């Protein structure tokens, strides 16, 4: 009986913690990116608002929230608002299958630092990833603007093509681990003592491309190519209604996928026990943010593909490569037992 209560409490606590952390983190990732980009470009980034501009996200948030609500003419109001939810919710729900560290014990109960320890975590990941497309589509359709419309169509095409590649890329790792459960995947890597990036460099690169594409980062940010479509699908959104989109797409999405990537290819929280009980968590965060750093670095360096090339790239090159990679992995596993 009180077991159930306890589990309930634990889950509630987990959800709250994850929500708080991710949303807060998402806000501060904007500061992180602005600083990073600034120094990459021989600038400073925010410095004036608070020490090192640390209060900048607060100011932005305040400003965005207190902007006057202004609805463009001729919009489809229901979809217009639904789009925001459809963009934000899947991005947050991605974190449900992110294991933040090794399991530990409290009052004799073993607790896994993950919201939902699904056996089909990877499938769930794909599902949520493709859900994100709807947010964009709705936004583009509802806001009655040509730029937004074109942008959303581009994004839809992009998501559709890259989901497939993402699937095959991740599946080859699943084959190696023999499970879709993130904990099992990490344990398998810890047991074998080798991270899967060693076995699966190709699938890692593919996954990276898909990450960039799904989260609308350069070189795949066709849906908000500023020079062509003013800001793409969210052109008609103002105030916090706008603020949600980059938060969800550029930051939460990227963060979650980076975490998953750390799990799939870099052995999650595996690493030498330098920091006592928390070393697992610290390793995990370190890997995640390392990957995030790399993503931003790419974003601020490369030019942008154009829409038709992006889709072509996915179907003509990435997909065959990923399939071959998967089949090859399968054969290897089959013959080497």
């Amino acid at each position, binding site marked *: 009986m009180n077991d159930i209560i306890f589990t309930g409490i634990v889950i509630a606590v987990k959800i709250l913690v994850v929500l708080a952390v991710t949303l807060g983190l998402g806000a501060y990732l904007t500061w992180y990116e602005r600083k990073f980009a600034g120094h990459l470009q021989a600038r400073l980034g925010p410095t004036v608002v608070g020490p090192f501009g640390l209060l900048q996200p607060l100011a932005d948030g305040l400003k965005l929230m207190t902007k006057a609500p202004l609805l463009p003419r001729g919009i489809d109001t229901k979809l217009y608002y639904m789009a925001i939810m459809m963009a934000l919710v899947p991005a947050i729900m991605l974190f449900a299958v992110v294991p933040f560290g090794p399991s530990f014990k409290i009052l004799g109960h073993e607790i896994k630092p993950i919201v939902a320890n699904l056996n089909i975590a990877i499938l769930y990941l794909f599902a949520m990833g493709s859900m994100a497309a709807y947010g964009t589509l709705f936004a583009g359709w509802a806001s009655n603007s040509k730029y937004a419309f074109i942008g959303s169509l581009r994004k839809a095409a992009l998501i559709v093509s890259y989901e497939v590649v993402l699937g095959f890329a991740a599946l080859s790792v699943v084959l190696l681990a023999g499970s879709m459960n993130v904990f099992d995947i990490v344990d398998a890597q810890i047991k074998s003592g080798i991270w899967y990036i060693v076995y699966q460099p190709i699938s890692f690169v593919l996954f990276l491309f898909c990450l960039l594409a799904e989260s609308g980062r350069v070189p795949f940010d066709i849906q908000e*190519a500023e020079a062509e479509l003013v800001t793409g699908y969210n052109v008609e959104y103002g105030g916090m209604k706008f603020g949600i989109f980059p938060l969800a797409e550029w930051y939460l999405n990227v963060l979650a996928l980076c975490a998953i990537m750390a799990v799939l290819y870099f052995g999650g929280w595996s690493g030498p026990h330098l920091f006592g009980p928390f070393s697992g968590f610290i390793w995990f965060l370190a890997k995640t943010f390392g990957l995030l750093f790399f993503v931003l670095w790419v974003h601020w360096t490369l030019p942008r593909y154009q829409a038709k090339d992006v889709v072509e790239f996915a179907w003509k090159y990435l997909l065959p490569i990923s399939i071959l990679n998967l089949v090859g992995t399968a054969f290897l596993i089959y013959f080497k037992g």
Partner: protein
Amino acid sequence: MPWASEETLNRIKRSFRTVDVYKSPHFARISVENTHDITNVLKHLKDVEDFRYFIDFHVIDFPKEKERFLGQYILVNPYNFERLVVKVWFKSNKLPTAKNIFAGAKWAEREAYDMFGVEFEGHEDVKRMFMWEDYKHFPLRKDFPLGGIPEQRLPSLTELIEGNTLPPSHDYELMHTYVPTIQDIEKTEKSRITKRGQLVLNWGPLHPGTHGTMWFLFDLEGEHIIQTDVILGQLHRGMEKIAENLHYFQFLPYTDRMDYLSAVCSELSYVQSVEKLANIEVPLKAKYIRTMFAELQRINSHLLWLGTGALDLGALTVFLYAFREREKIMDLIEGNAGFRLTSAFLRIGGVHYDLAKGTLEVAKHFVKDFYSKLKEYNGLLTRNRIWLKRTKDVGIITQEDVYQYGLTGPVARGSGISYDMRKIDPYAAYDLVDFDIPVGDVGDVYDRYLVRMEEMYQSAKIVEQCIEALEKMPPNEPYVNKKHPVVIPPKEDVFNDLEDMVKSFRIVVHGENIPKGEIYSSGENPRGELGFYIHSIGKSSPYRLRIRSCSFYNLSVFPKVIEKHTISDAVALLGSIDPVVGETDR
């Protein structure tokens, strides 16, 4: 540029009895008596005499004459570089169109209609070029006032909200010329393009991608553009009208604001054409200073092209790296001219100041590490597969297009045509420095990119040579030819020397009375050939000053090239043509 030689003119004379020819060291023209011959004459010139490079067409207004308007074509023979001006009088404000002979004439004639209200037989869409559709007047006619005709009360809203009714300043006018309503603008837009595809996308006028305020209408089939039209005039400020109302030296600051990315080059083109008209000798030091700053300005302008072009194609960081170098050049120009962007540095007959102390060291320091910066830009873009994908074989401009539309500058050179004023008629000190002209062969965006990158390198080399030459010169070398009667003497002389003071009084009050005559002279701007046709009737201000704008003609090829490409390609192509609105619209 060598003008058309005697024998060429005589050959033309022999084949057309009715034309009369005229030749002077700085000019060569044929004038066609019979208006209806003009088509044949142009055909003959293009096909037989190889004057196939269309440079400019413009109109002059003579209210007193019996036929009011005079049209002038400027053609170039691209094989032995001969330039020729063809004059023809309109017959009752009509002229047979030349757009079937030279495609570039299409826009030029539209502009002529917009500014003068002249008509062209056989030109189906003679529409307003710069003004909106139902604008009543024809601004460049002599009887139209510079300030326009005030029609509506348009007070300053800020003052109204403050609730004060007094005029905020002594030159504040309550009455204002007619400001079009949004309906007028929509009418203009509707009249331009008839929809054939799925949707018509308004790209601009206030859009981050369209360098300034250009306005493109894309008729889209999916992402592909099936037809397009460009609406100009969102920055039409009436430069040519202003020039007719100012003294020669007063118009100089305005040339900065035309092509605001290459101020010194524009000044140089203007100043040297006025000097040719009044035949003023320029001291050697001034020549070198002019060349050095013109080349610095060229680097400056190309850097902005690089930054914005890369930004349009998504490479966000190149923009800031390019601007880092721009800041240095800005420092150089600011230190000498006194202003960062619109530096009124040159003067008729020389330069405003001598070089400031330390300029040469700083310039050397800049050039030294500019080469390494160029390497960085190359490393970021040139071999990058995405960059190649976006630029290779996109927006190919053929040589025929170049001649037809009168494209100049890097756009022409990208297509392999070596048309560069600095070599053809060397104006400042370009005959004393050694540099070579990069040309591409395919004529796509990538070629234009390579050409501009190479030009930056060449300009840096020129700057180095100028620095050497200037270092050798004694410090008290004259930098302005103050002997000449129409040159304003430098400031310190005005205080100390009575004659100079009187002279400066005379010029400032009465203006330089340039002798009667006409001249067309051009310089090589970063965007192409910026030419000034000046028609002087011996007054203190030009009777007609025509600005042959390079961006205007370079842009005129855009609608043809962009067909069947995507929007993303349009961005790339526009970036590679690199127009400046201040110059397209004047």
